[in-house]
């Protein structure tokens, strides 16, 4: 069983509803997913349309040996399965398909 997190007190939390930046990383939005985007490395032309469209910054990118930005996969810890990437991938390419999450 997961140990319950200790909630901070009024003196411990920052005042005035301030939340430190980048805390979204700690949220496992991947657990919300009912469908998962499956990326096909062979078909992908690395146009980065999916990367720019993803509302959760869940399309992983890197630099290749020629220092060109390429897609390397999906961050399933944060991808919530909205399907935008699959929808936005150029119709002639269709390098991302949505598949049901298997239990």
């Amino acid at each position, binding site marked *: 069983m997961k140990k319950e997190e200790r909630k901070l007190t*009024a003196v411990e939390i*920052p*005042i*005035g*509803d*301030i*939340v430190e*930046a980048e805390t979204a990383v700690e949220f496992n939005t991947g657990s919300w997913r009912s469908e998962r985007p499956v990326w096909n490395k062979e078909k992908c032309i690395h146009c980065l349309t999916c990367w720019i469209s993803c509302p959760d910054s869940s399309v992983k990118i890197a630099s290749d040996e020629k220092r060109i930005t390429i897609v390397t996969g999906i961050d399933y810890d944060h991808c919530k399965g909205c399907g935008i990437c699959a929808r936005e991938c150029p119709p002639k390419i269709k390098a991302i398909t949505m598949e049901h999450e298997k239990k």
Partner: protein
Amino acid sequence: MIKTVYSKGKLVAKTGNEVVAEAMRQIEPDVVAAYPITPATEIVQIFSQFVADGIVKSEYVAVESEHSAMSATIGASAAGARAMTGTSSQGLSLMWEMLYIASGLRLPIVMAEVNRAISAPINIHGDQSDTMGARDAGWIQIYSENSQEAYDNMIQATRIAEKAKLPTLVTTDGFIISHCMEVVETYPDADVKAFIGKYEPERYLLDIKKPYTLGSIDLQDYYFEHRYQLAQAMRNAKNIVLDVAKDFEKTFGRKYDLCEKYMLDDAEIAIAVIGSTAGTAKVVVNELREKGIKAGLLKIRVYRPFPAEEIAKDLAHVKAVAVMDRADSCSGAFAPVYSDIVASLYASGVTNPKVVNYVYGLGGREINTGHIIGIYEMLCKIASGTEKSSNKVEYINVRIK
């Protein structure tokens, strides 16, 4: 004759609005966002003239409503600017939603407020219903008896707000102070600027090296803690107000406190009141004292945070007290200041004084020395036991029957 208190002070004849705008010119906030026509008074209009004439470097944001005025002020303050606004009456009502956001985000906004009645019926005159309606908004509220206090309060408010991290409003009674010309002592620009110092927020949104989120969702697990912090900040603000007042007195020579006690220490009967009516009541106290009647006055300067223990101590020895409210909360019971004072007395174990509630002056209805003498006469009777103290709100100068 009015004399200067500060060695480098200068006597000027100005209306309340002019002198509050003058304080704003000297403070020269980074941003002023306001809706400069009715119901606002001239304060921000005069200030916008300073901006147009290049007298101040402040950024002036003319918005389309008070809701936007407060929103833009909140944005500027969160971004790290020293931000101010001004309003009155319906304008303050329209800010309602944003007032709570300003305090909830702990932004040290300073607002110049002119106390005027709220609709309906339409009325533009002096009445404290507007700020009394905002008494639970988490704003520090400082009331002024006259233009001099309004000017001094604006200067102090800047420091109080920034130290307490709470928005602060400084009020003047509509028309009685705002539009009346009085002789006021102003201090040199450089001395005012030195007193308020440079605003250096600990955190601000434009600090790209320390990014953070402001105003996020805060549900069952943390909202209560944040609201507790706010309530606690208001409690702590009492000492901040006093510290700033002490420093102000050291610098400019004028003494301020949470309340002003006027002939109160040995008083047997007393009036507790907020704002310009305190001035009228002082005249009456002087007259009564000449006749040997031990009358006193308690003027509440800082209404939020409410000086509960201090008031209980100040009034403990008084036999009969009249609390005068220039706002009726329509609660079916009592008006706001009365409720606060009675709660303070009771909580401090002070049960000796008989305390009656008078609502007066709504919509600018005249309150003169005659009315106040009438109240003191009634207090004399209550104190001597010849008259029972009323257990409901009494109204001054209104045609009831």
